């Protein structure tokens, strides 16, 4: 039964675990370093060193994650990624130019994560910010945070947080809190916590009561990111449920973990 026209029995490509682990460790170490060691330095002006560490740790970690994940993705997940990235940039750019307090730049990432799983979501998030960096360099250092959002969104989808429309905002709230914590040191050490007019007002309010820059940025991140991800997750849930059955059928992740309630259930079994 070996015709040149057929493929051999499937052996699913596995992610390169070592690369993924090193990437994740690098990101975690960078974050811990920034939070634990640096706050003292900020009073004398931001050190170039901490900016460098932020840039290399988060970008390098993101690159390793992508390198580890990409070979394991199916073609249908792969095709979805550019689409998610284009949606992120198109919508994020619009929201940014409108001066909103929220960013809305993760709709594509979360959509890919829900349809194709956490790995595809993480890779989409990281690459999205890397590519956006070509048009808006300020997005570049947030790549690791974006990857984390994709990873968590996919995990939430896998464990049924999208099976009910009212659960999605809850998941968004939690993921947003984590995302805000991770993004805060980047905002503080790379950009002195400057952002859009909306986010700045928040930072200014926290600074006015005497918070340090990192603490103010963290509080601002916790506020904006939770609201942002709450909105994003809700929108993605509405979008996913509006999809026709046939477009949902192309994503094995949706079937295997019964991500969405109702008609896509694994009626056909294995």
């Amino acid at each position, binding site marked *: 039964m070996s015709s040149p026209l057929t493929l051999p029995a499937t052996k699913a490509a596995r992610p390169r675990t070592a690369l993924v682990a090193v990437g994740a460790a690098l990101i975690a170490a960078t974050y811990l370093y920034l939070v634990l060691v640096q706050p003292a330095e*900020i*009073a004398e*002006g931001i*050190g*170039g*060193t901490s*900016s*460098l560490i932020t*840039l290399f740790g988060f970008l390098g970690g993101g690159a390793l994650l*992508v*390198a580890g994940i*990409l*070979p394991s993705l199916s*073609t*249908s997940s*792969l*095709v*979805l*990624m*550019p*689409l998610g*990235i*284009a*949606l992120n*940039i*198109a919508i994020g750019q619009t929201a940014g*130019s409108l*001066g909103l307090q929220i960013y809305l730049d993760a709709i594509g990432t979360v*959509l890919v994560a829900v*349809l194709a799983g956490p790995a595809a979501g993480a890779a989409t998030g990281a*690459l999205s910010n890397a*590519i956006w960096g*070509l*048009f*808006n*360099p*300020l997005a*570049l250092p947030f790549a690791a945070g974006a990857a984390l959002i994709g990873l968590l969104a996919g995990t939430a989808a896998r464990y049924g947080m999208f099976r009910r429309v009212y659960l999605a905002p809850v998941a968004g709230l939690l993921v947003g809190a984590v995302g805000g914590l991770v993004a805060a040191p980047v905002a503080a050490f790379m*950009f*002195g916590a*400057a*952002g*859009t*007019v909306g986010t*700045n007002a928040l*930072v*200014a309010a926290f*600074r*006015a*009561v*005497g*918070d340090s820059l990192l603490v103010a940025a963290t509080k601002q991140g916790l506020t904006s990111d939770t609201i942002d991800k709450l909105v994003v997750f809700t*929108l993605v849930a*509405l*979008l996913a449920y*509006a*999809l*026709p059955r046939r*477009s949902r059928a*192309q994503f094995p992740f949706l079937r295997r973990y019964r991500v969405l309630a109702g008609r896509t259930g694994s009626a056909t079994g294995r």
Partner: protein
Amino acid sequence: MPRRRVFNPLTELLAAALLVVLVLVVNTWQFSLAVLVAAVVPGVLLSGKPRQIALAIAVTAGPLLLSSFLLHGLFFPEGTTVLAEWGPARVTAEGLQFAALTGLRLAVFTGVLLTAALTVSIPELVSTLTHRGWNRRLVFVVGSAVGLLPHVAERARRITRAQQARGLVVGGSVPSRVRGLLMVSVPLVTGLLIDAAERTQLLEARGFSSPGPRTSYLPDTDTAGQRTARWLLAAGVLGFACAWYAVGAGR
């Protein structure tokens, strides 16, 4: 008018990235200012589209600079030299200095990277990555994402018009805005996903999963000299950074 290309996109992007690293390593306002005046400004002027790039830089970095000055100029609790005070807001010398340093660095960061990115020809970059044997999946995601961007924007515009023709009025209350957003994004995302399903089949049929290296239709504009230069540049900046920190100037 596209300028005459001197170097391969990969070389230019790497040079820009290394310049940013240098600025962060040296970390003095004098050096940042020097890079801004000696590298970014001529780069923009010689780019062949100075107005477009200047506008992009202004749009990206401008609001950030402004808000940075407002934020740190008015609220900098660590500051001791108070120049003026209104209620909770205090203008401090340290705050202004902090804002200037951060702002200058931001300006260099966006200026250098945007000038490089906006003059780079993406097809040439994608082709170079292919010729250099980068992972074809990564090259596809980058190339396809950049290629989809104008397509997505154009499609969103057409859908908005179609929905207006059947009664969507843009603006108004928050619920009606949300409904408007959904009216545009549902057909947009659904259409893109249906296309993606067909593109999946297309990629498989066109042999995208084939083993071995991909080739590119576009000629290779990279040269052995530039490849060597890239390694040398990277090594040079690394060496400089080590030396800088070893001498202790980085404190």
